[in-house]
């Protein structure tokens, strides 16, 4: 039990500390692919440090909710990172929240940030909140359907058990998981505000979604939000890896496998991050009202995956 707690704390801290590195890697790859000279991979850490040192500038009209929301978002993402098995499967916090609760954690963070965006009362803030809720109400059920497919296969909604079950099986046996994996990729892109749904580096009012919500934040609050964003990307990537490519993860009680698991996850994240930046470079951002079609496709794919499970594998 105590080893489990130690492993839990270590893994969560590792996720929190490494998350900006993944973000830096994605940005670096993207810059290379676009033919720009790339910022160093540690650039996100430098930005965070700079932001933490600055004075926070807050609008006169901000309520306590506005100042509380970044902490809430950060806490939710830290918990989410704690639940998802990255290097080890034996996590003592995981019984507290299964995959449905994981979706709930993401929703909690999102609702708080959307409310905070509406708090100042600027047109961009409310616009961002509305668009972000639009994206999420389509993405959230699709994500649940992906999880449902995985949990129908493993007869459980507990992530460690899903991962352990899937790690012992070959990919080809489950066509439903292929559908689920495509849907999951699309959802991750949308939820992490990446191209083609949202562009993290734009501030154009016609296109921005997530950035519009956090326009009024500065300094430490912005730093926490950015960090939480990096953590979210990390968590989603780790989740995708755990569900669809779980090989190499250290299963219950297998301490000796930890170094190998760490190497495996780093390699998988590096490949995944490069793939994400490649997809971003080759695709264009879609119009806002094409986003429901994009996510509707993801939702349908996920439901199809579940139906296929019932039809072919049930």
């Amino acid at each position, binding site marked *: 039990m105590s080893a489990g707690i130690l492993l839990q704390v270590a893994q969560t801290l590792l996720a929190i500390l490494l998350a900006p590195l993944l973000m830096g890697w994605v940005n670096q790859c993207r810059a290379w692919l676009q033919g720009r000279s790339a910022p160093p991979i540690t650039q996100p850490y430098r930005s965070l440090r700079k932001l933490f040192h600055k004075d926070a500038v807050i609008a006169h009209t901000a*309520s306590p909710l506005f100042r509380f929301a970044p902490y809430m978002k950060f806490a939710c993402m830290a918990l989410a990172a704690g639940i998802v098995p990255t290097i080890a499967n034996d996590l003592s916090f995981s019984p507290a929240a299964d995959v449905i609760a994981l979706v709930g954690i993401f929703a909690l963070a999102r609702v708080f940030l959307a409310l905070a965006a509406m708090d100042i009362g600027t047109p961009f803030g409310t616009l961002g909140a509305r668009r972000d809720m639009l994206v999420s109400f389509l993405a959230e059920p699709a994500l649940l359907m992906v999880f449902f497919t995985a949990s129908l296969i493993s007869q459980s909604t507990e992530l460690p058990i899903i991962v352990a079950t899937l790690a012992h099986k070959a990919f080809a046996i489950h066509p439903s998981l292929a559908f689920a994996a495509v849907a999951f990729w699309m959802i991750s892109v949308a939820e992490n505000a990446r191209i083609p749904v949202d562009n993290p580096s734009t501030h154009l009012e016609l296109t921005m979604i997530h950035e519009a919500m956090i326009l009024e934040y500065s300094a430490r609050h912005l730093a926490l939000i950015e960090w939480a964003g990096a953590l979210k990307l990390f968590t989603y990537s780790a989740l995708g890896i755990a569900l669809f490519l779980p090989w190499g993860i250290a299963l219950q009680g297998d301490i000796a496998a930890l170094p190998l698991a760490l190497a495996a996850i780093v390699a998988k994240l590096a490949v995944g991050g490069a793939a994400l930046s490649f997809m971003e470079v080759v695709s264009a951002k879609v119009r806002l009202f094409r986003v429901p079609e994009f996510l509707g496709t993801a939702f349908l794919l996920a439901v199809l995956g579940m139906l296929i499970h019932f039809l072919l594998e049930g």
Partner: protein
Amino acid sequence: MSHLASLDAHVLDLAWAGVLYWLGVGFSALLLQRRHGLLTRLIFPLGALGALFMAGIGVAGLLLPASSMVLPIGLPDLPFHLRLDALSAFFMVLLGGAAFGITVYACGYFRNMAAGPLALLALWYHLFLAGMVTVLLADDAYAFMVAWEVMALSSYFLVTTDHKIPEIRRAGFLYLLIAHIGAVSLLLTFGVLQGGHGDYTFNTMRLSEMTPFWSSAAFLLALFGFGAKAGLVPIHVWLPEAHPAAPSPVSALMSGVMLKTAIYGLLRVTFDLLKMQLGWWGTLALALGLVTALYGVIFAAVQSDMKRLLAWSSIENIGVIIAAFGLTLIFHTDGKGALAALTLTALLYHTLNHAFFKGLLFVGTGSVLHATGERRMGRLGGLIRTMPWTAWLTLIGALAIAGLPPLNGFVSEWLLLQAFLLTPGLTQPYLNMVIPVAAATVALAAALAAYVMVKFYGVIFLGQPRDPALQHAHEASWPERLGMLWLAGACILLGLFPTLVIQWLEPVVLMLTGQRLSGISNWLLLTPVSAERASYAPLIFLAGVTAVVALTYLWVRRVYHGRVRRSEPWDCGYPEQNTRMQDSAEGFGQPIRQIFEVFMRVERETPDPFDRHPHYRGDSRDKLWLLIYQPIADLTAWLSMQAARLQHGRIQWYLIYSFVTLIFLLVFTR
């Protein structure tokens, strides 16, 4: 043990005494017509005590075996039969618990009302409460229908409290009409259920055997009758009209509690009286429930009146409950007792949750209405600064109804989704195809509910006041705050201690399905089936969130600093900003309207770009009204017009009518 047994005999007497007490409180309000102070400071607090007492009776009723009694009131040969079993006791706790908070709130809410109408309102209010409890206690069709009518009529008078406004009279009429169509259907249900014995006690109905045809007929009639009360699509049209029309505590009571009497009735008839064995009707209820849930939440998203938004959200929640009911029925008839127990637990849990969070949200809008005199969300905004108590307490309700952990809405949703995941293994293969789609619909409705609540809360309480007068909005009075605190506290506790609640629900689940949930063993960890299958621990979750928030806060302060500078909002450097540039309620609902436009008839007036005083109006109406109700109304009007031809207004004609009728009757009776 003998002590318990003696209490057992008296608990039903006490419940009936509570009903009489409420009637007494209601009628004594009439005597105090001129004493305004006493009405708010005495009558409503006394009513609230009654509610607490009822909740206590309910708790006792859950622990004790069922007891029944016969009251020699009513017609000579038809005494009232009363019975308190686990099912009625559970709904009594729901009623008492929610009504206590709402009635405490009402002590403050009605302080500015004139004494005369207030006395009348207090009478109807307590009659309404007494009627609802009697519905729960009734053990024969006669008592049930009498109580059902008392409930319907008293709530009609409550809805039409502001009867001078034509829309409210119209809403009241629609409510009365559909309530009575539903009541006729219930009357027929009981007619079928008594099976030709001529004995209308529930005990006889329990024992009688039915052919599949007649039990189907009884079930469908009951689904229609109780569905009309609960707001099941397509018989939901009265709900978004009537609930917002009533004063806010009454809306809270109607949405939070009255709708649940319909759920009670449905459970009572299906599982207790009918002992339903026909699973395919479960599929019908599941489908209707899912349609209702989705339809309700889509329309909630496009509303611009805050109380109407909540009314549509009630339709959504009722849909989820009816879907759970359908699933329970499917499992129950398929011989999957443990799964039926799980689904029924989710159903009861959600019913209980909805009473508290919807009550809280409705009374919250009541305080906003009092402080600002405005129901249109597009004229509100920024109230978190002037009304912090109302705003923060309402936030709890909004997060709970959006199904966010660790509050109570999440628990019931989680249980229901678990039930969907356990379906493989049903004997009918077509169900295995239906269930994933059903689960997807529930998930979609839940995600949309979060959208609706962000809109509701953000537009009313956050942002900047859209009207300068809102700067002077006053905070809710102390009784109002206490009432809201009670309801919000219930939302939190029901969210944090699910295992205790589920253990406490066990007698009801055992009574209706004959099974109990197997996995509950640890009070900290909610494991409905087994720990390997699924688990959820809200307390640990809350501790985790709190710990990380606190640690992050301290760490940022310690390592860096806590300096804050206040300035104007930045807003991308846009120079001219005013409060009208924030999203209005219509604006926030616009994406939903665009996506789901097929269900609505949208009317829009968009202003000219050169208009100096632009005015925008958008209205999204229910298409079902046009498709179903408008033709019926037109037909009725046409038939009336035809009948009106007989009415000439000339006395000769009327004398001829009487004469012909007389001759006809003489010929006929001879």
